[in-house]
């Protein structure tokens, strides 16, 4: 319990440590803490902004999706319409073609039939001439009776 020079020594040490702390310890630590605080505040603000942006982006995405769906539906509609149209066109073209083919065939058939008829008519004339010769027993003068035979042939 003696008061002695230790008192002075302690005072000197005290002053030294306080000055050291004031110069080299307190300012950097406080500065770092303040800076970190600011950084954290900035970070939080950025996070807020980001979540807001995310919300907006989501909304936009939904809108785009709906738009795309509409577009797809309209495209499908148009395609369906066009498909029907093509089928219709093909149908009508086929019908026309079929009609054309049919008329051509009919014409040919007609022609064929006419030709056959002409042929037959000739033969029938010849036959009837031959028959008449036999019946009459004499030859019919081809030239004299040609008018008659032709007339007959035409009647057949």
């Amino acid at each position, binding site marked *: 319990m003696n008061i*002695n020079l230790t008192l002075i*020594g302690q005072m000197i040490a005290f002053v030294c440590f306080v000055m050291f702390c004031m110069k080299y310890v*307190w300012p950097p630590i406080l500065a770092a803490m303040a800076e970190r605080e600011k950084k954290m505040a900035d970070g939080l603000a950025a996070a807020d902004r980001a979540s807001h942006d995310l919300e907006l982006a989501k909304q936009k995405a939904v809108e785009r999706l709906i738009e795309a769906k509409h577009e797809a539906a309209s495209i499908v509609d148009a395609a369906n319409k066009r498909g029907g149209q093509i089928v219709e066109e093909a149908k009508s073209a086929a019908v026309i073609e079929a009609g054309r083919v049919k008329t051509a065939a009919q014409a040919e058939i007609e022609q064929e039939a006419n030709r056959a008829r002409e042929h037959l008519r000739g033969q029938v004339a010849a036959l009837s001439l031959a028959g008449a010769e036999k019946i009459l027993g004499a030859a019919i003068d081809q030239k004299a009776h040609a008018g008659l035979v032709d007339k007959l042939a035409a009647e057949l």
Partner: protein
Amino acid sequence: MAGSSQTVSEYITHHLTNLTYGELPGGFEREDGAIIGEGGAWVMAHGAREASAMGFSAIHVDSMLWSTGLGILFCWLFRRVAKKAETGVPSGLVNVVEMIVEFVDSTVRDTFHGNNKLIAPLALTIFVWVLLMNLMDLVPIDLVPKVLEVVAGVPFQKIVPSTDVNITLGMAIGVFILMLYYSIKIKGFGFLKELSFTPFNHWAFIPVNLFMEVVGLLAKPFSLGLRLFGNLYAGEMIFILIAALFSAGVAWMVPAGFLQVTWAIFHLLIIPLQAFIFMVLTIVYLSMAHEDH
């Protein structure tokens, strides 16, 4: 523990004696019978009697070394963190240091409203330094002195600097000088007026006022220093008594151990509390010195 060659009172006295280096007056007869020559001599004291004969021109080597050592530990630790302190995620020691700094900073902000760059570092230094010095009280009281005695032949060792009244008063007087400095700097002549005209605002009461205010002013550093000293000295004393109890016989070991643990736990409360009180009172006194009425 008290050795068989020591009585309990010798054991206690031994533990309460600082390792003192000082000047013995001429003609003083030392413990070993040697007589100090004319003009005195600077020697290491061999006991409490020699230490007190040295008077003011002596220094407590143990208190000084432990207190400056702990102060340097504080500076080194906090300086390291201050260098490392970055804006990234703090970890480990940085966290602890920043927690203490933040705690001190908020305490200073709550109490001190002036603008003074000294107060907060001062409060931090006081808080951590006193805390470290008080914490030495939890080191088993015989451990360090015994080791030093056996290894290096050091006769006395008090490892808790805050149980040395020189240490606590040294800090308190440092704070007192700051109080006077700021009182005069901020208030100027108003400081003298404050001393003369409170509490009785009449010229006839000036002597009474001066007496009361000066006593009040002087009481501040003494109460500050002696409060810390008294608490820690008493705590240390009880640790010494409990340690002495161990030597009273095998039957006393269990109750002594129980008392030791109980007191250590209780003391764990006193240690930071006294550091905190010292810091807060420093801030309050300096804040009063800054307030101009």
